[in-house]
């Protein structure tokens, strides 16, 4: 793909290099400052939440007497008490077919999932807070619970929100014109249902917050482990009735987010509400049990997909019926629509499918609310479409790679608008597939693969996933999704200090992505100053411009885009100042490596520091006419509709028939996120995502029993992959530059898991295809694989 000829493109020198990360300096030496490390004033109060033991019940009585009698317990508050200090959490969603629900920060009257807070204990220290929690006696009147997805959608299911009269909190349908006719024309129709299990992001650091007040409550400062400080700030203003100008939200170092921390949670409302009430700092640190019980869950989905194909295996029509378990409440800011709407829209992937229709439903249940986890609905949507590709191949007797070739959007079809209106500007769909197949030795693997797939006593298979990744949503994109509490734009303030050192304040929040390095690379290139001279501030609403923050692979597109634009303004001003001092035209000034010089006359030069001294009036030079003092610029950038990345993952697996265990033997990725800022960081994101996918496919599953009790709310019972489970991963990059945003960037934070889930699942399905097993349900724990093998062998 040709690089568009645009100004600034030849200026990328630091961007594109694998610079080891700057944040490592503090994270590697124990100097990181995570939420529980933020220095707490000595009069800090610590909160403990009393969690519901019932999935669905009326709260009959809350007896706090014994708790209040404990030395060190200051107060115990119920939902009614908290409701006097806060407004209920409500997203005010604007999407047809969505029935929004409201959540009290602490439950009143009724509880709707195990883990929902029913009271809050205020204590002198975290140990006593827990002592207090244990002594709050809650009497419940249990009610029948709706738990599993299909039963919660049933007509006779207990209602989660009675006032809605249904558990279906979102219903949406879509069809292109002539869909039925297109199906009628199809040579064959293939149908399959895919089920995926409930999982969660499980960042290594649970959540937490610390709220302090100043100036008699006028100022509220809140440290919180979140990906969305600006969204939290606006929510607090609204729900506390506190002037937004008096609220500052700071994210310290955050120990992993993965979407989990891209939601506003009730504790983030209770902490500041109580800080304002008591006029004392209030702190809450989540423990792992609470993390698994109450942080957003994801991926409990059912897709039924029907494709009509022509004689060559090209899809001529497709229908998708999806259901997603939304849990007990709408999440803030995404409502209950995130997965159910995303799944049916993302499913088209990199494929040319003109005739398409969907029906989708989000179903409320008496379980933890569902929402964003890395990739959101894309891993399961791609699992469904990629599962169909393999079924098409099997049905008409062609190779799975060939089935994809016949359906991929071809280079000459770009730019391309999908049947649901998503715009693909640039991409490398076929090229990345062919390269990935080459890297893994696909032909050779297939040639040497016997019909029963048994090689050296193990079933061996290979799985492919070609995917697209939605990234960098701007204003139009968030409006289209109905997200009324998300602005959509992001902002950057770039300031050159009087010594020539640069600080860029960007409206994102870091939780491991390496923003202190990659954003600095962008700014250094755009201002033509040394990388070492640039530092980055993110995650502090008191310092950064307004914005939408960090989720859905937005960072590089929206934050990077804003930074590029702000830098352009600053760079122009630097040129004007230099031109003024050197008495030449600004057009003749070039800046390189921190020095402005007159083109062709290298002796006529000024360092950026000297320019900055002029801007801050620290020399005898005056500013150019019309230019104000200072050397900074703020830009708010709206990326509009999503920018689409693409990649191909191919994996091989070996399955031990005797115990059903899976070993991932090879794993290759060809990745295209447009201009790569820091290849080492991008590769790290892919590695991490792919291994989260491995967890999702092979071992992770949050299991509720019929009564709505979560069966595995500890890391002893919820397994995450470890170093013994993972493959080494080979990655190559293709860079299809886009002109959709100022940097030519495409987001990539979620792609690893989007590609990994289908590639790994399909590899297992391929390994078991020889014996006729049909793989359509995740996760594939050894027990499940052994069952599939047994059933397949028995039916032969």
């Amino acid at each position, binding site marked *: 793909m040709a690089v568009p000829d645009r100004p600034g493109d030849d200026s990328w020198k630091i961007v594109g290099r694998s610079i080891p990360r700057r944040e490592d300096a503090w994270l*590697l030496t124990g100097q990181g400052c995570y939420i529980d490390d933020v220095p707490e004033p000595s009069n800090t109060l610590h909160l403990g939440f009393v969690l519901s033991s019932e999935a669905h019940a009326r709260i009959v009585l809350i007896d706090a007497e014994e708790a209040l009698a404990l030395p060190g317990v200051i107060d115990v508050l119920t939902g009614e008490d908290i409701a006097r200090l806060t407004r209920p959490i409500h997203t005010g969603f604007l999407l047809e077919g969505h029935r929004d629900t409201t959540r009290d920060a602490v439950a009143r009257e009724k509880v709707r999932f195990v883990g929902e807070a029913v009271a809050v204990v205020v204590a002198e220290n975290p140990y006593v807070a827990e002592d207090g929690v244990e002594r709050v006696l809650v009497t419940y009147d249990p009610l029948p619970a709706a738990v599993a997805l299909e039963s919660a959608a049933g007509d006779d299911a207990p209602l989660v929100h009675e006032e809605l009269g249904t558990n279906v909190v979102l219903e949406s349908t879509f069809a292109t014109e002539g869909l039925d006719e297109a199906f009628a024309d199809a040579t064959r129709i293939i149908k399959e249902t895919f089920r995926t299990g409930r999982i969660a992001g499980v960042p*290594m650091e649970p959540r937490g917050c610390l709220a302090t007040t100043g100036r008699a409550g006028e100022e509220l400062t809140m440290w919180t482990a979140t990906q969305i400080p600006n969204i939290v700030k606006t929510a607090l203003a609204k729900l506390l009735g506190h002037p937004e100008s008096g609220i500052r939200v700071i994210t310290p170092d955050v120990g*992993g987010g993965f979407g989990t921390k891209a939601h506003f949670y009730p504790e983030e409302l209770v902490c500041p509400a109580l800080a304002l009430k008591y006029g004392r700092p209030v702190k809450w640190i989540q423990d792992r049990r609470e993390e698994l019980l109450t942080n957003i869950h994801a991926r409990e989905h059912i897709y039924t997909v029907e494709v009509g194909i022509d004689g060559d295996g090209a899809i001529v029509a497709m229908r998708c019926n999806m259901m997603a378990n939304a849990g007990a409440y709408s999440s803030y800011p995404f409502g209950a629509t995130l997965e159910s709407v995303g799944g049916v829209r993302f499913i088209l992937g990199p494929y040319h499918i003109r005739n398409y229709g969907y029906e989708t439903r989000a179903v409320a249940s008496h379980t933890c609310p569902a929402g964003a986890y890395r990739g959101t609905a894309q891993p399961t949507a791609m699992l469904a479409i990629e599962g169909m590709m393999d079924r098409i191949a099997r049905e008409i007797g062609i190779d799975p790679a060939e089935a994809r070739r016949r359906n991929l959007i071809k280079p000459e079809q770009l730019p391309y608008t999908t049947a649901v209106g998503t715009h693909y500007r640039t991409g490398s769909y076929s090229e990345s597939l062919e390269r990935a197949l080459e890297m893994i030795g696909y032909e050779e693997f297939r040639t040497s693969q016997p019909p029963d797939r048994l090689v050296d006593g193990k079933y061996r298979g290979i799985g492919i996933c070609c995917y697209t990744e939605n990234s960098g949503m701007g204003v139009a994109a968030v409006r289209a999704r109905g997200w009324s509490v998300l602005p959509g734009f992001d902002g950057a303030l770039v300031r050159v200090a009087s010594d020539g050192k640069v600080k860029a304040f960007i409206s994102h929040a870091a939780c491991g992505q390496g923003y202190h390095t990659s954003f600095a690379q962008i700014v250094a290139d755009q201002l033509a100053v040394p990388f070492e001279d640039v530092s980055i501030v993110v995650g502090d609403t008191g310092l950064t411009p307004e914005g939408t923050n960090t989720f859905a692979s937005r960072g590089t597109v929206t934050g990077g885009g804003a930074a590029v634009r702000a830098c352009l303004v600053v760079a122009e001003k630097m040129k004007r100042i230099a031109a003024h001092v050197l008495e030449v035209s600004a057009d003749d000034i070039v800046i390189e490596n921190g020095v402005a010089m007159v083109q062709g006359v290298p002796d006529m030069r000024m360092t950026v520091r000297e320019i900055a001294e002029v801007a801050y009036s620290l020399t005898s030079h005056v500013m150019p006419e019309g230019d104000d003092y200072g050397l900074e610029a703020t830009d708010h950038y709206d990326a509009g509709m999503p920018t689409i990345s693409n990649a191909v993952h191919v994996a091989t697996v070996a399955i031990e028939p005797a115990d059903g265990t899976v070993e991932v033997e090879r794993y290759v990725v060809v990745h295209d996120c447009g201009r790569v800022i820091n290849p080492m960081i991008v590769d790290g994101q892919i590695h*991490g995502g792919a291994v989260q996918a491995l967890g999702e496919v092979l071992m992770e599953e949050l299991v509720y029993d019929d009564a709505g009790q979560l069966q595995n709310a500890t890391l002893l019972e919820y397994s995450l992959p470890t170093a013994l489970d993972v493959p080494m991963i080979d990655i190559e990059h293709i860079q299809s530059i886009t002109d959709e945003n100022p940097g030519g960037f495409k987001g990539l934070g979620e792609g690893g898991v989007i590609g990994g889930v289908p590639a790994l699942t399909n590899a297992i399905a391929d390994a078991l295809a020889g014996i006729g097993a049909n793989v359509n349900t995740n996760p594939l724990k050894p027990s499940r694989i052994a069952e599939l093998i047994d059933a397949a062998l028995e039916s032969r």
Partner: protein
Amino acid sequence: MSKVEVRLTVNGAEYVRSVEPRYLLVDFLRRELGLTGTHIGCEQGVCGACTVLLDGQTARSCLHFAVQVSGSEITTIEGVSAEASLSPIQDAFHRNHALQCGYCTPGFVLTTVELLRQNPSPDETEIRRGLTNNVCRCTGYVNIIKAVAEAARSMPTGEG
């Protein structure tokens, strides 16, 4: 609740504090001594974010009461390298991008210190086995495994 005296040598310095018997070592390090590089991830000994060296061996600081190990020597991440420098292991983690959010990293570094002390030139399988008791949710382990291999190559035998 009455308090008990705890005496610990941490990163070479001796500390004496009075805490409740139930006070976990990790809370002692973090809240009493301000050594917040040791992180709390699960309080069940599964994740390894709270790993420290206890008398030279890795131990979960969330699975010990401070009083129980009174008199011991503890090394935390803050004691792994001299001020403003990186140890060979930390440097290998840095160069290989073996950390992202960094929350698990102190535990991995201390686990690697012990691993390379006992096996200065581990092969890939031995590295994986050595790291398997610590959970990282960001890196997918690929670069951690590479970093440990590189650290082993770069270190004279026995250096931590």
